[in-house]
C-alpha cells in the first residue's frame, strides 16, 4: 500500500511538474589518443564517488559499480574496481561533506602493485567534480579520465552532468539512477571507438 502511494504521488508530482525526476548527459568528451584499446589487459577503475555517498546514496553507488563492471564485461573488458573509502587514504580522510582536495594520485600510487597483478593497461578515474543540492534536487558533475597505466598520460576525458529529485531519500531508485549514469558513459565509450 505504501509503495503504491509513493508511486501515485511520484506520478502526480511528475505530471504537475512536467519534468523528469532524474537526468544525465555527456557534456564534454575529448578525442581519444590514437591506438587506445581498453581490451588490452584489464581496466582498473578508481571511483571516488563514495566521497559523496551522502549525496548519491550507498545503494546507488553499489549499483553503479556493479553495472559498470557488467557493461564493460559485455564489451569484452575485464575490470577491477577500487573505491576511495576502502583505501587507507580514504578511511582516514576527514570527510565532512565540504569541498576538498582529494588525494587521487596518492591512492593510485599506493595501488600500483595491484595494477600490475591485475595486468591493468589502463586506469579509469571516476571523480565527483561538483555536487550540490538545490531544494530537493541533487545536481552533480562527474569526470571520467582514462589514463595509460604505463605513461600516466590521460588518453581520454569525459564530463557528465546529472540531476536527481530526491522525493523520499537519497537512496531511492538506485538501479535506475545508476543506469542513467553508466549507460551514458558506456554509450560515449562506444561512440569514441573505445568499446
Amino acid at each position, binding site marked *: 500500500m505504501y509503495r503504491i502511494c509513493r508511486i501515485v504521488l511520484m506520478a502526480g508530482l511528475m505530471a504537475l*511538474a*512536467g*519534468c*523528469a*525526476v*532524474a*537526468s544525465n*548527459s555527456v*557534456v*564534454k568528451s575529448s578525442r581519444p589518443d590514437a591506438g587506445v584499446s581498453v581490451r588490452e589487459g584489464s581496466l582498473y577503475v578508481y571511483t*571516488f564517488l563514495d*566521497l*559523496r555517498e551522502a*549525496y548519491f546514496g550507498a545503494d546507488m553507488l553499489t549499483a553503479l559499480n556493479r553495472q559498470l563492471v557488467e557493461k564493460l564485461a559485455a564489451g569484452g573488458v575485464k575490470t577491477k574496481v577500487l573505491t576511495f573509502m576502502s583505501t587507507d587514504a580514504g578511511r582516514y580522510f576527514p570527510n565532512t*561533506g*565540504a*569541498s*576538498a*582536495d*582529494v*588525494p*587521487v*594520485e596518492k591512492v593510485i600510487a599506493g595501488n600500483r602493485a595491484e595494477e600490475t597483478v591485475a595486468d591493468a593497461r589502463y586506469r579509469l578515474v571516476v*571523480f*565527483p*567534480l*561538483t*555536487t*550540490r*543540492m*538545490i531544494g530537493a534536487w541533487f*545536481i552533480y*558533475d562527474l569526470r571520467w579520465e582514462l589514463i595509460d597505466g604505463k605513461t600516466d598520460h590521460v588518453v581520454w576525458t569525459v564530463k557528465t552532468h546529472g540531476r536527481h529529485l530526491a522525493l523520499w531519500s537519497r537512496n531511492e531508485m538506485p538501479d535506475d539512477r545508476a543506469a*542513467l549514469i553508466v549507460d551514458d558513459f558506456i554509450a560515449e565509450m562506444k561512440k569514441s571507438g573505445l568499446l
Partner: protein
Amino acid sequence: MSIPGKCLCRIAVVAALALLAGCASHTFEKSIKSVADANLKGSRVEVYMLLDFRESSYGPDTLALFETRLGSRLAAANVATEMTAFRDTSVGHYFSITDTNAIVPVERVVRSNAARMKAFGAQYSLFILPTMTSGDSNHFTVTWVLGDNSHNAKVWEGVSQINTDYIWSTDYRSDTYADFLLDPFMAELKKQKLID
C-alpha cells in the same frame, strides 16, 4: 530521461520576460584604485579566472564565453592576456566541490602556475573570484583584484553584486549572461582609467 521540450519552453518564456523586465542587475558596490596612474595599455596580464570554482552555478558555457570575450575585449584595448581557470591547474584538477562554504586555494593556484606565468611575462595578475554564490544561483558576489607582479602590490580591487533570473540552468542563455558578467567589468576598467 531528460526534461521535455514543453518544460524548457515554459522556462525560456519566464526567463526572457524576467530579463526584459529588468529584474537582473550587475553593479559594482566597491571599486578602489590604489595606484593612481596605473594603466594596462601595452601590458601582459595573467588572468586567474576562478569563477569555475562555482561552475555549476555560473554555467560552463557562460564561463567559457566570458573567458573568450574577456580576452578579446582586453586585446582590443591593447592588453595581452593569458587565462588560467581553477580546473586547469594541478590544484583544481582533483578538487571536489560541494555547495558548502569553501576557501578557494588562491595561493596554491598561483604557486602551481608560477613557471607558466613567468614564461608569459605577465606584469599584472587579475584575480576573478566567486566570493558568494546563493544556493538558488540567483545572487552572486564577485571580487576582482588587479595586482602588480613586480611590486607585489594591489593596483585595483572591485566587488560586484549580481542578481539574475536563472530559473533552471545558468547556461540556458549563456550568450546573454556572458556579456552580463563582462560588460560592467569592462566599463569599470574604463571608468578607473585602467584601459583607454
